[in-house]
């Protein structure tokens, strides 16, 4: 096993292939180019709302599975973790940072959780409800004081009952 670090020069293969002085995009994009790329994301906003609605249904189904069947609870918890992570990654891209914040809270809470206790289950249910509220009311941005307080209260509950 190598003990001393051995350095190798960077591969220049891609530079040789694609970097030039005539054609393509500069290393730092122009504002108009950024706008064009951002338009690609904006164009997908409708798909995003459909996708999130589907994910939220998936969360409710998984929650129901955890609550009512001991068999498959681990798999259902994994589904909650996976879906919450996906929503966390999507929300902020489509001007829903509050959705990302609630999804992160749910994902953090369930990350290392086995089969949840009744109180943990209540917190998960409340976190999923909060995600529904954000999407149901199309709350873009960081939300109002009420939503921020709700987020803060859920995070506090999660901290208290994580283990």
């Amino acid at each position, binding site marked *: *096993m190598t003990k001393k670090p051995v350095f190798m020069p*960077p591969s220049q293969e891609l530079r040789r292939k*694609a970097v030039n002085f005539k054609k393509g995009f*500069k*290393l730092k994009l122009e504002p108009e180019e*950024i706008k064009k*790329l951002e338009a690609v994301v904006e164009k*997908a906003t409708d798909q995003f709302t459909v996708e999130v609605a589907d994910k939220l249904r998936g969360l409710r189904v998984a929650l129901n599975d955890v609550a009512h069947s001991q068999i498959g609870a681990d798999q259902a918890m994994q589904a909650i973790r996976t879906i919450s992570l996906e929503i966390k*990654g999507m929300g902020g891209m489509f001007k829903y940072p509050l959705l990302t914040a609630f999804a992160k809270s749910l994902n953090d809470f369930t990350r290392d959780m086995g089969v949840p206790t009744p109180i943990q289950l209540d917190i998960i249910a409340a976190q999923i409800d909060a995600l529904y509220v954000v999407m149901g009311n199309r709350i873009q941005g960081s939300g109002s004081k009420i939503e921020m307080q709700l987020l803060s209260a859920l995070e506090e509950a999660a901290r208290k009952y994580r283990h």
Partner: protein
Amino acid sequence: MSEDMADHERIDFSKISFLVVEPNRLMGQMVRDVLQMLDVQYIDRARDFETAVNVLRMGRTDIMITEWALSQEKLGRNGMDIVHWVRNDGGSPNRMMPIVMMTANSEEEYVCRARDCGVSEFVAKPYTVNGFYTRLASAIARPRQFVRIGEYFGPDRRRRRLDWAGPERRIMADAI
């Protein structure tokens, strides 16, 4: 290269082949659409470890963009396993391939784990397209030297170059 020349450098994305490993349909489509806006012509897509490795074995991929968490059905292997395969497996066609980890696992512990596995650039979801572009451009136009130390093989994890007036501390290899 002088700063002035660097300001005029351009990246012709039409020459570069991508593999996008993303289990979420919409997020995968977003990456594909953004890459196509950049004039990328060749984009392979995968949702799980097995498919990604099969594509990589073909040897046509220049850059891989991968999510950490892969398809739910394939829970055994994740994006980090693909990174590890590229960097360390004897069957890997290009162990120095630029790899962009684009993931909602964005907390510091994940960034560190990704770095220690050999990821070239890290993009935290949700991301801005400009942030994504910047990482991509950096991976292509500013490749980092590689290092082998202990069990690690991957890009040099130190970002800053510090002047060192003391005795020689590092060994530069001629080739891998």
